[in-house]
């Protein structure tokens, strides 16, 4: 019973398992569920294993039992695309203005908020898919915006991208083939974890070594001699700072987080912060980089023995790194160029590395990568790179 309900849950993306569905059947059979309210709570507690899906569950429940249509997630995607366009605009106003077919100086009069609104309007103008036309976002046309098109200075929306600093990919994120894009993939996660294990354990000598104790006791003629080993508790503290700003970083964020999450028990403490492109005065504790800012100056308070790991593609316009007010976010302009900030961090934490998902061969082509790799020891986010990075992190000073 309720098989269609089960499949609807699966379709909207909730990980439900057949086993739990059978458990629900068992509960139904035992007459434990007597009303629709019972069904609501019981089915939820049996089928849904994370509060993140509670909202989706509610929607599906309302859809299945009361026929309320499932909402479409248009709003969110339009927001994301508009944000991407704003980033683009800040990097290269002329190109985007040309692409939209409007005067650059007109757009310049708008504040960022107004710009976002404007972009949204334009996006909403375009109803449905648009392929092969001349006007707006779609595929295979001559329009400057869209993918697989011909316009030379075009901006890509969706599709595959190579030169990541100029291109924003904003389409069908869920179907991205993660496994082929990155040097480090889900498949070799286990191997990557092994690399991290080399972050050697140091702990108090509080674990009794029974074999050695027996041996020594025998040698002592029965006089008990207790021998202790260092317990396998790693006392390393890790600060992980992740660039979650651009689409280019998308496939790697969750991977890096999973990587460190799984090895969490090995470390004393892992703190994760986020930034966009490069670090200015603040990094953020929340992935949205909005609610919980953390002052970069406050890193001084952190134990300098902490291992500081930055994950980012380090690809950006040079001025973002060098200029005194390089940040594309007004509120973080304090007059110190990002380059100085990075130097400060590197000096604060003698053991720091930068992991870059961009393949090492390509580093020479991007100015900002070269500049940052002169400050941080930079390694490719691959198994080899990870191994070398761990080596650097564990080096005695």
């Amino acid at each position: 019973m309720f098989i269609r309900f089960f499949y609807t849950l699966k379709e909207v993306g909730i990980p439900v398992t057949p086993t739990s569905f059978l458990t629900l059947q068992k509960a139904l059979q035992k007459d434990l569920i007597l009303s629709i309210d019972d069904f609501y709570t019981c089915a939820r507690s049996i089928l849904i294993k994370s509060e993140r899906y509670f909202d989706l569950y509610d929607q599906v429940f309302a859809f299945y039992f009361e026929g309320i249509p499932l909402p479409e997630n248009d709003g969110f995607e339009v927001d994301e695309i508009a944000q991407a366009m704003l980033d683009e605009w800040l990097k290269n106003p002329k190109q985007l203005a040309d692409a939209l077919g409007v005067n650059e100086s007109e757009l310049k009069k708008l504040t960022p908020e107004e710009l976002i609104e404007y972009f949204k309007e334009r996006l909403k103008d375009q109803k449905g898919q648009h392929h092969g036309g001349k006007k707006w976002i779609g595929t295979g046309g001559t329009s400057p915006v869209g993918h697989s098109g011909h316009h030379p200075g075009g901006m890509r929306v969706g599709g595959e991208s190579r030169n990541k600093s100029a291109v924003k990919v904003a389409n069908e994120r869920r179907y991205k083939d993660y496994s082929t894009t990155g040097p480090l993939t889900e498949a070799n996660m286990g191997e990557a974890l092994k690399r991290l294990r080399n972050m050697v354990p140091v702990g108090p000598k509080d674990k009794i070594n029974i074999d050695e104790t027996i041996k020594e006791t025998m040698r002592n003629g029965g006089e008990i001699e207790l021998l202790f080993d260092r317990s396998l508790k790693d006392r390393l503290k890790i600060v992980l700072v992740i660039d979650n700003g651009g689409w280019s970083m998308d496939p790697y964020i969750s991977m890096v987080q999973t990587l460190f999450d799984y090895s969490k028990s090995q470390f004393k403490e892992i703190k994760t912060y986020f930034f966009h492109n490069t670090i200015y005065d603040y990094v953020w504790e929340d992935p949205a980089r909005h609610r919980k800012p953390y002052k970069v100056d406050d890193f001084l308070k952190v134990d300098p023995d902490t291992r500081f790991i930055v994950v980012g593609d380090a690809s950006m316009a040079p001025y973002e790194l060098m200029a005194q007010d390089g940040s594309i976010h007004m509120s973080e302009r304090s007059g110190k160029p990002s380059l100085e900030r990075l130097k400060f961090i590197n000096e604060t934490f003698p053991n720091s590395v930068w992991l870059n998902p961009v393949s090492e061969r390509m580093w020479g082509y991007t100015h900002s990568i070269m500049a940052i790799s002169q400050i941080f020891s930079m390694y490719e986010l691959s198994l080899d790179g990870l191994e070398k990075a761990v080596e650097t992190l564990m080096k005695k000073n």
Partner: protein
Amino acid sequence: MTDLKNPDNHFSGANKYVLDSELASIVNISMALEMPLLLKGEPGTGKTMLAYAISESLGMPLIVLNVKSSMKLIEALYQYDTLTRLNDSRFGDSTRDVSNIEEYIKMGKIGQAFAAEKRVVLLIDEIDKADTDFQDDMLDVLDQMQFDIIETDKVVTAKQRPVMIITSNAKKDLSDPFLGRCNFHHIAFPDPKMMRKIISVHFPEIDKKLAEGAIDAFFTLRNIEGIEKKPATRELINWIRALDADPDFHAKDIIKGKIPYLGVLFKKSPDYQRAKDTASRRSIF
């Protein structure tokens, strides 16, 4: 199977625990299906208290396993006390029989719950603290409701399936196979209405105005932007106790924006400062 109609086996709240009906039915169905119930939610939403409440209202003994970060599952099952045995064999002055290994096997919390004559409530508190191995190892034990004592080659089987409550504070999900064996519930932070009920259960005699004002102020303070550790129910209860005990404090002070003992609510210094600033700003208006 547990009979739901039998009032002895039906959980409907306890003396000092305010239960919403949703949670009650989830607890009851988990007991009936004999599945562990995994509870998540902000600290202070009463995850741990629920186990105490179940044990109190159903008259079952409660066994608490506080999970620690370095804990291995074996410690929760049983411990073979080699050191004592070694010591006994050396001095020979104890009453224990050194040649009998069983004398040196001590049951851990899960072991105790299995060995108990009566059905017990087993609370596994903050399971996320231990590493994933702990959870994975526990799967077998949960499934079979039995484990081996390697030293004596004996199998300990649960006489009665304990009522298992597992709590987790983690943002990160537990492993999928583990989740598959549990029922899940996320306890939301109580809304003001619920909070009033909770307070009146804890302080039946309290001045209405004081409770009302304190709860209002509490929710306002909780909503201050950027607070790192939000005060929870536990803090509110302690705070009201403090306010109640202070003879110089009057309920109308809170309405005027005078909020004493902020340290009871906010335990981190930046939070405290921020709350203090906000509170004093309020009093100007």
